[in-house]
């Protein structure tokens, strides 16, 4: 199919437009809202929608600005060997017309429904409608991946390419098999439905009924069995009951005997109790009498004893008093001894004090003497020290000086010249003023350390030392003078003497130290005055003691004797004191004993009196009792009661033994048991009888309602249901199996047909995405993923641009495959590749070019630059229609809109006799109908007045003033004058 030309009039915003498409790529460019998409929409409706349609989509095509005109679309289309000029107008004076030009020049002209049907027939013969739909991608429809597996026409092509032949036949067959299977199964999950479900339900229901009746049947059998059992049980139970009743009767008899024995025993026990009472009474009487006699005897005895005790107590009291008096005397004695001893101790202590005081006076006197002596020696030593105070310092310096002198001399010896004189004869000379006399052979020598003048006679020899020796000599002199001064200051004539002085000073110092120590020792830390005071105190004490001393007392001897005497006296005093205490203690005890004895005597006396009274009372009472009843009488009475008791006991034992022999407990147990047995046997019997009654009733009810017949009928129903189910199942499974096999076979075929499509698509994918690219398809052969360099990317994960590109490539591949077979369909892309970069766009260009080699490609865009790389494209520019404007193209559009349609279908020629008048009348009628001003185009269109007749007709009407004109030239509008609207029909 190829679209050659498309003309729109009054469609949506387009007043009039004609577009001519090339055989290859046609690019329709124009700004937004210029009606590019309207072109496509119009083409679709032309092919699909009948002229009588009032559908929403058709109403949407109606122009807002020229609503008096119906939207009109005309297309020139090549379908195989036929060229079709096809036109439709909707809504206002709907119309369809079709002109077919066949290869051989034959033409067909058709109108109305006929035209529509013929066109559809032709279209379907040459075009796969699904493919046509798939290859038109409208703006805003989205770039869904195309599904070639769902395009029967394309599939047919592919199958043809592979030599398969299923095609439509396969589709139809599968559809029929599916329809058949759909009677029995749900579409997707193969769940039973329809007759199969019914058969299954009926079968299940029959099974349930059978089971239920079978259960009832078994219940009846069970009841019957139980009834038989119950009846047997009841018979056995009757025997048991009879035995139990007999047993109970025997047990009751036994129980009666036990009762009698129990009564006898009770009587014996009663008699026994009475005998015991009598016996206890007699025995008590007797015992009481014996006790009274005994008590009386005891009381007499106790009275005598009390008397003896009272006398003893009196004696003891007297003895105690005697002892106390003795103790008192002993105490007095001891007290006196003790006083004396204390006196003696005091005297001994005074003696001792006196002796000590005297000794003290002596001691203090000696110590004071020594202190004084030491003080004097110390004073001396300290005087010496004071005198020699500077000695150590002087000595030290003197020794230094001397040592320096010795060193200087040694140097002089070594260095200074030495004057040695030896007298050969007695010689007197003077050296430096010193007269020296030498005997023959005597020598003299001197070191020359300074100018030395030796005079001998007239001779004056001067010896002058060298400079050094002179210097040394001067030093030596100075030191010699200093030494002399030192010795003078010390009062010594030589260094040795000075040393002796130093020795003395050291000695004095040592003495002073020693004396001070001794003195301190003698003082013992107290001052001398203190010592004096102590001495005076001791003296005063001694004198006082001396004065207080008794005159007759011999003077005490030494300290030790005095101390010994005091110790002896102290011990004696202590001993005497202890003795005194002991005696006092003894006295106290004796006094207590006296008191105790007196009280004991009182008590014993009281007891004696009491015992005597008790004895006389008891004696009186016993005598009274005996007067009442003799002792012997009581004895006899008790013996008789004992005999009676023994007899009663014997009787009681016999009665108990008799009862025991009857084993009353067992008898009671047996009786209870027998009664329980009877009771339970009766109950069991009742239960059985009730059960039997119930079972009989139930069986009667059940047996009579033909259970087995109903069961048999249910079984027959089940059997029939099972057979029906089997038959239905086979049919259902067969249908299912057939669908499965058909689908499977078809899928396998489809898999084979995929290949050519995939090759075509891969070729394009490589061209756009690069050489190492391929696509993977899903079952419907839609692109599932793009594999680039071995990495698979699912379609949904691709970028928007890549998705769009792949969607276009898939369509391009379809278009190419279809075109190759001569059944091409135009590939129409409205506003595509908004997401593609220039590089991709260029590659896509080559693909579109390739598609265009075999078929038509129509690209609608507002960005023509996108497609500049599509070579050999036909460019068509469309502009936005501006109402009433006078812009470029406007003129042309208006002309186009005004142009009468090419009569495709030969309109019947005007009837003979029609002419200007007819046209004028038509125009008037038209204007009257419109009720508003109309332009030339509209009038011509509505009336069908030929263009050539227009000028003449309208001029005549205007001249006759039955029509008025507003505006001029192309803006001219024509209307009926107000006054003539009503009367227009009367116009000539």
């Amino acid at each position, binding site marked *: 199919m190829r679209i050659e030309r498309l003309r729109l009039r009054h469609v949506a915003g387009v007043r009039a437009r004609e577009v001519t498409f090339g055989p290859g790529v046609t690019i329709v460019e124009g700004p937004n809202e210029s009606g590019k998409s309207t072109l496509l929409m119009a083409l679709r409706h032309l092919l699909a929608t009948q002229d009588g349609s009032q559908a929403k989509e058709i109403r949407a095509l109606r122009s807002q600005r020229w609503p008096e005109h119906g939207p009109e679309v005309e297309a020139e289309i090549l379908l195989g060997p036929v060229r079709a000029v096809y036109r439709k107008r909707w809504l206002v004076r709907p119309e369809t017309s079709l002109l077919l030009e066949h290869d051989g020049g034959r033409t067909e002209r058709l109108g109305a429904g006929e035209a529509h049907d013929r066109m559809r027939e032709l279209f379907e013969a040459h075009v796969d409608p699904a493919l046509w739909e798939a290859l038109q991608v409208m703006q805003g429809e989205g770039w869904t991946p195309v599904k070639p597996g769902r395009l029967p026409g394309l599939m047919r092509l592919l199958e043809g390419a592979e030599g398969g*032949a*299923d095609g439509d*036949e*396969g589709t*139809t*067959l*599968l559809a*029929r*098999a599916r329809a*058949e299977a759909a009677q029995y199964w749900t579409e997707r999950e193969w769940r039973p439905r329809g007759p199969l479900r019914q058969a299954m339900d009926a079968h299940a229901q029959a099974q349930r009924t059978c089971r239920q009746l079978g259960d009832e*049947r078994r219940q*009846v059998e069970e*009841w*019957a069995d139980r*009834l*038989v059992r119950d009846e047997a049980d009841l018979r056995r139970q009757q025997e048991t009951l009879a035995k139990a009743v007999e047993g109970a009767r025997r047990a009751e008899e036994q129980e009666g005997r036990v009762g009698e024995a129990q009564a006898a025993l009770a009587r014996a026990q009663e008699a026994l109790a009475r005998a015991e009472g009598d016996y206890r009474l007699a025995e008590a009487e007797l015992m009481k009498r014996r006790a009274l006699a005994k008590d009386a005897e005891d009381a007499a005895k106790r009275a005598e004893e009390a008397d003896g005790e009272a006398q003893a107590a009196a004696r003891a009291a007297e003895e105690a008093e005697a002892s106390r008096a003795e103790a008192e005397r002993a105490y007095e004695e001891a007290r006196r001894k003790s006083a004396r001893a204390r006196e003696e101790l005091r005297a001994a202590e005074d003696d001792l004090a006196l002796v000590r005081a005297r000794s003290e006076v002596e001691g203090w006197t000696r110590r004071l003497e020594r202190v004084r002596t030491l003080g004097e020696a110390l004073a001396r030593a300290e005087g010496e020290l004071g005198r020699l105070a500077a000695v150590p310092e002087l000595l030290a310096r003197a020794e230094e000086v001397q040592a320096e002198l010795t060193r200087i001399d040694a140097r002089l010896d070594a260095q200074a010249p030495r004057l040695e004189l030896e007298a050969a004869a007695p010689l007197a000379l003077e050296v430096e003023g010193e007269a020296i006399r030498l005997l023959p052979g005597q020598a003299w020598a001197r070191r020359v350390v300074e100018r030395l003048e030796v005079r001998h006679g007239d001779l004056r020899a001067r010896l002058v030392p060298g400079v050094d020796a002179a210097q040394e000599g001067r030093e030596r002199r100075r030191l010699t003078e200093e030494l002399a001064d030192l010795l003078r200051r010390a009062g010594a004539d030589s260094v040795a003497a000075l040393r002796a002085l130093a020795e003395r000073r050291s000695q004095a110092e040592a003495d002073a130290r020693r004396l001070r120590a001794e003195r301190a020792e003698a003082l013992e830390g107290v001052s001398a005055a203190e010592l004096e005071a102590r001495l005076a105190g001791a003296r005063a004490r001694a004198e006082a003691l001396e004065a207080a001393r008794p005159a007759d007392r011999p003077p005490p001897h030494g300290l030790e004797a005095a101390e010994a005497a005091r110790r002896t006296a102290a011990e004696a005093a202590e001993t005497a004191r202890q003795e005194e205490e002991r005696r006092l203690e003894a006295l106290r005890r004796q006094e207590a004993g006296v008191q105790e004895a007196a009280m004991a005597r009182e008590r014993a006396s009281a007891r004696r009196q009491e015992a005597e009274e008790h004895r006389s009372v008891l004696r009186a009472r016993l005598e009274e009792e005996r007067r009442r009843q003799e002792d012997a009488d009581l004895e006899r009475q008790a013996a008789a009661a004992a005999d009676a008791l023994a007899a009663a006991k014997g009787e009681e034992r016999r009665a108990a033994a008799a009862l025991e022999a009857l084993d009353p407990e067992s008898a009671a147990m047996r009786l209870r048991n027998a009664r329980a047995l009877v009771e339970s046997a009766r109950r069991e019997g009742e239960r059985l009888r009730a059960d039997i009654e119930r*079972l*009989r009733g139930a*069986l*009667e009810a*059940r*047996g*009579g*309602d*033909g*259970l*087995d*017949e109903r*069961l*048999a*009928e249910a*079984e*027959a129903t089940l*059997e029939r249901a099972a057979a029906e189910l089997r038959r239905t199942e*086979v*049919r259902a*499974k*067969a*249908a299912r*199996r*057939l669908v499965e*096999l*058909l689908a499977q*076979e*078809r899928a396998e*075929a489809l898999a084979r047909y995929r290949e050519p499509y995939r090759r075509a698509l891969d070729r394009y994918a490589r061209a756009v995405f690069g050489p190492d690219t391929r696509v993977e398809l899903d079952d419907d052969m839609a692109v599932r993923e793009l594999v680039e360099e071995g990495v698979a990317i699912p379609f949904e994960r691709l970028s928007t641009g890549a998705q769009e590109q792949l969607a276009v490539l898939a369509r391009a591949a379809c278009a190419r495959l279809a075109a190759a077979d001569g059944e091409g369909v135009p590939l129409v892309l409205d506003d595509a590749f908004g997401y593609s970069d220039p590089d991709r766009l260029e590659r896509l260009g080559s693909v579109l070019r390739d598609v265009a080699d075999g078929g038509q490609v129509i690209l609608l865009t507002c960005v023509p630059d996108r497609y500049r790389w599509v070579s050999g494209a036909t460019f068509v520019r469309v502009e936005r229609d501006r109402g009433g404007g006078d812009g470029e193209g406007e003129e042309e559009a208006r002309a186009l809109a005004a142009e009468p349609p090419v009569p495709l279908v030969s309109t019947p020629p005007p009837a003979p006799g029609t002419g200007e008048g007819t046209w004028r009348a038509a125009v008037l009628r038209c204007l009257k109908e419109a009720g508003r001003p109309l332009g030339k185009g509209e009038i011509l269109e509505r009336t069908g007045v030929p263009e050539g007749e227009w000028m003449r007709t309208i001029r005549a009407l205007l001249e006759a003033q039955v029509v008025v004109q507003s505006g001029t030239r192309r803006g001219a509008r024509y209307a009926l004058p107000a006054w003539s609207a009503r009367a227009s029909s009367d116009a000539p």
Partner: protein
Amino acid sequence: MRFIHTADWQLGMPAHFLAQEAAVRFQQARLDALARIGDVAAREGAAFVVVAGDVFDTNLLSPQTVARAAAAMGRIPVPVLLLPGNHDPLDPTTIYRRPDFLSQLPPNVRVLSEPGVQADLADVLPPGVEVVAAPWTSRHPADNPLHAALRDLPPAVGAVRIAVGHGGVDAVGGRDELDILRLEALRQAVGERRVHYVALGDRHSTTRLDGEGRIFYAGTPEPTAFDEVDPGNVLVVDIDAAGVAVRPVRVATWRFVAERFDLARGEDVEALAEWLWRLADKERTAVRLEVTGAVTLEGRRRLDQALEDAGAGLASLDLRTSGLLVRPDEEDLTSLAPGSLARRVAERLRAEMAGEDREQASVAEAALALLLRLGAGA
């Protein structure tokens, strides 16, 4: 003395294998058999009719069934003695004590409800005839009651003694069951002339059990199943001190026919059709047809057609085709273009039909038929 020995009336017996309409007729036929027995009795001058057990198919029958049975028995012109058998024992559910049965019991009908020699039948039996009965009291007794009834029986003196019993016998397909009859015991009783004739029920085929001809299964008067050998008779028994003569008389109106056809060649379908056409009394005939061999789809279609045509009117047609293989041939598939989708699928179905799995094969067969039908409509 002449009497009629019959048994196993199985009144109220259902018929699963029959369509509902035929089942009703089948039941009616069993009741009608009683009338024919009455006719035989009258014609033959029989003194009485003894039914050796299983008078009813079960105790649990509806009152209507019981009432119809009682009425039919009442119409028999001679006394009728009924023995409770294993299907209708004297257990707590027994019909024989049901009020609806007792209230409608015709005067000529007696139930042999006490074991041993019957004392109270003097009013219905000819003089010099004794009946020893062995009624069943439960469906599963510990021993066949006939054994006990015969054991301590003194020899019959001056009377013809007829024992009436029920149950399988060990000599014929002996089942290992407690209630099985020991044929030897029966023969001994007959040999010692403790009884002169043993009238048995349970086996639906008329069967003689001893050389002397004194022990018989009467068989059912109307057949009930395909496996019965000689059903549909009653026995006319002539017996006296001199001897015994037993003669079967046919009373059945229904037939159960089992047949087998091996469809090795196409012609056999025609033979089968012919056989079916020739069957008489189709409305009272139940057919079990086992068809084996292999046929093409066309052959199978013709078979079905033949069954539909020739089998029309049969009380039941139980067709067994598990041994029949359907093998489509080229001709069957000519309507499918070679290499077409339908043809490829057909080939696969054909392979499945040839497989071992019979279930799958039958589904495949139906699927192929469907495919051909759908393809034909294309």
